[in-house]
Structures are given as C-alpha cells and as structure tokens.
C-alpha cells in the first residue's frame, strides 16, 4: 500500500465545461479543506472540444492536489468516471458531476457518514432542479423499477454524487451506464449502503447532456443486472426460473392436445408447439449452466467482494490466505 495514500479522491468527469471548471475547483477546495484530511481531485477531461483541458491543467500547475486525466476522445460519462476511479489513489472515492448541479459542500457530511461503517454513501437529490417530464418522471420510473428488480430500494440511482470505499469500488466493473446500478450490485455482495439527502442546483452553464431515450437502455441494463446478481447468488437459478415459463406452457398445451386426442379434430399443431416450448425450456437451462461456467472463470465475481465487506476478527483476508498456500 502506498504510504502517501490520500484519504479521499474526488473524481469529476468533464465534458465541455470550460465555464464551470475553475468555479468547481474552488467549491471543492472550500468544501474539503476544512475537513483537514489529505485528498486529491481528479478532473477527467472526456474529449472536450472547448478549452476545458487547458483551464484544468492551468489550475493543476499551481496545485499538485489536482490531477487532470485527458482521454483520447469523447467516451461518455461512465467510461470517464471509470478512468478517474482506476487512476485515483485515495482510500475513499467520491464521484460527482462536472456541471455544478451537485454541490461539493455535501462531501464532508457524506464522508462522515461513510465512516459510521458504510461501504457506499449515495446522494439523494430530494429537491431536484430539473425538467419534470423529460428528466424527473423517467428517472422516478427507473428508480422504482431498479428497486423492484434488485430488491434494493434506492431513491435516486442517477445521482452522481456518491462516496465509496476504494478497495470495494476498484473491484467493480464500471462500463456502459453501469454507474446507476453500482449501489444495487454492491449490496448484492453484502455492502452496506447509506442514502443521504444532498443539495441539487439548476444548471448554470451550458446544455443538459442527457435525454429521454434512456428508458429502453435502462430496461435492458436492468435485465443484465438481474442476471448477474442472480448468477452471483444462486448459480443458474435465474435461467431455471425463466425456463419454468415455457415448460409450464408446454405442459398445458400437451394436456390440451391429449384432450383433443379423444375428440374429432386431431391436428399436429398443438403437439408441435408443446414440444417447441419444452425444447426452449431445455435451451434456457443450458444457457444457465453456460452462464455459470462463464461466471466461474471470469475475473470479476460479485460474490468474492464479500471478502472485503465482511467484518473479520483475528482472521486474515481470504486472498492473503490463498497466496500463503502457494508459498508452502
């Protein structure tokens, strides 16, 4: 472990935010300086076409706490955050938006909350300053769905202002629009998630960069999360559950066609469909087994994270035990 590991890393992805950069930097410093901890700020320039990078690196020259990561092109918010998270050195990671809608002054309170024994602290924009139809209602639906499907009732998954324990977060894959499912995924691994109310401001500069077309993507991502979460819990159970639907259909249709055998119209249509659904059911069960194999051989396993989240007394963490075995 690094000796000069800061206690907090603040990761902010920036895309065409030349107006907000220096104000954002000032606000973060004003908020975090009184906490008297060592910290670093990571500005991730996500291929901006304006002068965001020049402004940010200008500030970085006078302040070694500020690190600026420049990406080769525009990748989007989640990959930009991933770049920041992977580069961050802190024990605790904070992520937030670069458009000044999140308020850095919430960070000290969230930092304290995390140290009460939580693994993640999630911001909840309880007085959200956004358009109702295009922003608030879709995200209400999305949050409700995510809560239902994952069983983790988080009121505001879309809020970027979150604090994580770094050792946990660095194990999590962070791609697509996965950031909104991170709390749910982590809670599958036994992490403790806290929600706190945070301030939210209306946009000061520039245009909002996200739109309505996300619902369909969120729905598909939700299906993915459900699969991955379920695979972590009961291997191949999720596919077996899916397989039960065509199997039941198949049996019902089989019964109907047997009943038809005694009647006058004996057609092959119903038996064919019955067999078809039964085969589908087999197919899904096979996929479940395949999925389990893939999960086993993969390098990221949600269930392994429990070694980080579990509380240990007089025990060595499991990964050290394993390396100990190899030596003997």
């Amino acid at each position: 472990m690094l000796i000069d590991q800061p206690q907090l890393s603040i990761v902010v992805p920036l895309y065409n935010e030349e107006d907000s950069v220096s104000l954002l930097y000032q606000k973060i410093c004003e908020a975090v300086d009184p906490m008297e901890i060592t910290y670093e700020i990571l500005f991730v320039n996500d291929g901006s076409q304006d002068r965001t990078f020049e402004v940010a690196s200008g500030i970085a020259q006078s302040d070694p706490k500020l690190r600026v990561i420049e990406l080769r092109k525009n990748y989007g918010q989640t990959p930009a955050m991933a770049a920041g998270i992977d580069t961050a050195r802190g024990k605790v990671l904070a992520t937030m938006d670069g458009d000044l809608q999140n308020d850095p002054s919430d960070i000290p309170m969230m930092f304290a909350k995390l140290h009460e024994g939580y693994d993640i602290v999630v911001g909840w924009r309880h007085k959200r300053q956004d358009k109702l139809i295009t922003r608030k209602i879709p995200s209400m639906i999305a949050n409700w769905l995510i809560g239902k499907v994952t069983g983790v009732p988080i009121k505001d998954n879309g809020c970027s202002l979150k604090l994580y324990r770094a050792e946990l977060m660095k194990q999590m894959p962070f791609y697509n629009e996965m950031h909104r499912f991170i709390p749910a995924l982590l809670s599958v691994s036994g992490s403790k998630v806290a929600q706190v109310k945070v301030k939210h401001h209306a946009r000061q500069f520039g245009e909002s960069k996200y739109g309505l077309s996300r619902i369909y993507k969120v729905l598909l991502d939700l299906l993915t999360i459900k699969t991955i979460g379920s695979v972590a819990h009961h291997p191949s159970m999720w596919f077996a559950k899916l397989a039960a639907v065509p199997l039941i259909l198949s049996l019902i249709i089989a019964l109907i066609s047997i009943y038809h055998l005694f009647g006058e119209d004996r057609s092959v249509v119903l038996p064919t469909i019955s067999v078809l659904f039964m085969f589908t059911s087999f197919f899904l069960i096979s996929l479940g087994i395949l999925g389990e194999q893939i999960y086993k051989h993969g390098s990221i396993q949600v269930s392994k994270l429990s070694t980080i989240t579990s509380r240990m007394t007089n025990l060595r963490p499991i990964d050290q035990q394993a390396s100990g075995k190899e030596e003997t």
Partner: protein
Amino acid sequence: MSRDNSIGKISVVVPVCERVEHTLKNYHEYRSAVEALGQDFEFIYAINSQFSDIADALRDIAKEDNQLKLLELSRNYGEGTVLQAAFDHVTGDSTLILPPYKQVELDELPKMFEALKTADVVLATRWPRLDSKFKQTQTRIFSNLMERLTNQKYADAGCHVRLMRTKVAKELNLYGDQHRFLPLLAYELGYIPVEIKLKQSHENVARSQHKPGVYLRRMLDLLTIVFLTKFNKKPLRFFGILGASAMVIGFLGLIYMTYERFFLDVSMADRPLLVLMSLFLVLGIQLIGIGLIGETIIFTHAEQNKEYRIKQIIN
C-alpha cells in the same frame, strides 16, 4: 507530452496475401521511394505460405540487403492477421503499410509523412481515380454503407496504403480480414484518422473484377465490425432489440388469433400460423437469453476490457 513532430525510423510492412504478381519489381521501387525520404528505414515482408516462390526470391535479395526482413508464415492467414503478426516485429517509429501491388504513385508518399506530423493515423485515398466508373461506384457505395452503419465516413476503404505511428500499430488487434476496417478500429482506440488524396497508380487500373463471393464476405466483415465497435460492451442492446422484435411479432400474432377464436369463431388449435407465431416467440426468448450470456461475459471480463483510453495524466 506534446505531439512528436519527427518521423523517425520508418518501418514498411508489406503483407503478401493477394495480387502478388509484381511483388519483386515493386520492392525495388518501394525501396528507392522510401530511401528518398532520407530517414532510417526497414522493410518487413509478411508472406503467406502459399507464396513460397516469392519468399525464396526475397530471401535471396535479403542476403545482401539488411533492411529487408522477412516473416514467412506457416500457413495462409487473412490479411489482418498477417499484418498484426508483422507489427509485432516493427522497430521503427512510424509504420507504413504498402500492399504488394502498387495502388498510388510513389512520388506522392512524402505527402503522407507530412500529414503524420499532425496526426497519428494517415489514410491514403486514391484520387484522381484512373479506373472504371464501375470500380469507383463500388468504392462509393461501400463507403456510404459504412457511414450508415458506423457513422464514420472514409472515402476509400479499398486503398490499403496507410501510415501510422508504431504505437497505434502495436495497439491494434487485427485479425481475419479486418485490415479493411483499420480506420474504424484505430478510431475505437481513440486515434482519429486523417485522409489525404494521392494519385492512383497506373498499375492499379487494369485488374480483373471481384468474384461475387468477395462481396458477401465483405458484407459479413462489415457486420462483424459494426457489432464489435458499436455493441462490443452491450451485447444485450443488440440481441435484445432483435429478440424483443421477434417476441412482439409472436405476441401480436397470438393476440390476433385469440381474437379470431373468440369473436369470429375461427378455430385456433389446428392452424399452422399458431406454430409460426410460437416459433417467433421462442426465437425471441432464445435471442434474449444469448444476449444475457453475452452480458455475463462482458461483466466478468470487464477488467481486461477497459472502455476508455488515457492520453495523459497531469500530476
């Protein structure tokens, strides 16, 4: 880290895979053209096993010519694989790909090196074209199709004269016939390709037409590339939309048939349409299932597959 303006040592990679008749004659012309640039250089010929006669002839030349290096492959591979194998041996600072047949006039090469000073990848576009209108239309159709599918337009994907910094070549992971889509793959890595127009070579004109199978193969390659670049990290977005459409068709059909059964008194159980609609439903379920398996693969291997590329870190 400011952009390196020097060209440095030039590595020329020539994949000997097709249209190889003039390979030897062209080597001497290529060599003098590259020598004229006044930089250190090397030539790497990567040769598929079927052209052992060319390999023999080149080996003879290489005895007296230290700048000529040969990579003789043990069997025949796709041009993309051949190129990537050669890239592993490149020692120069910039890598120039030249096909074994002449596509552009060689006295235009310095233009490409001029363009490399402000870019990482430079693509040659044959212009003015000397060959038939048919060939030109073909190029244009392919280019438009590629734009429709990938939102990136490259005027002449059929021109394989490409110049790039060696770090780009080493980072690319070409295989099969992907060399055609090198610009797209470089773009995925975060290197924005620059196109410049070079005069088409007279020797590039008189050529036989492609067999129809070639078009089919090219279409399949393009589809693979679209999948790899657009849906690489989100298989369920791809399979999900296909599966969901199949399921919607199936459901609508079943609803319609149920309606007919109860309101128009048409019997349902003996209609072949019922089988068709059930097939659609089942196809949808299977496609979505496959998409979910894809997502599991992506998730569990996300560590090896970072989405972003960092250019530089300050502090």
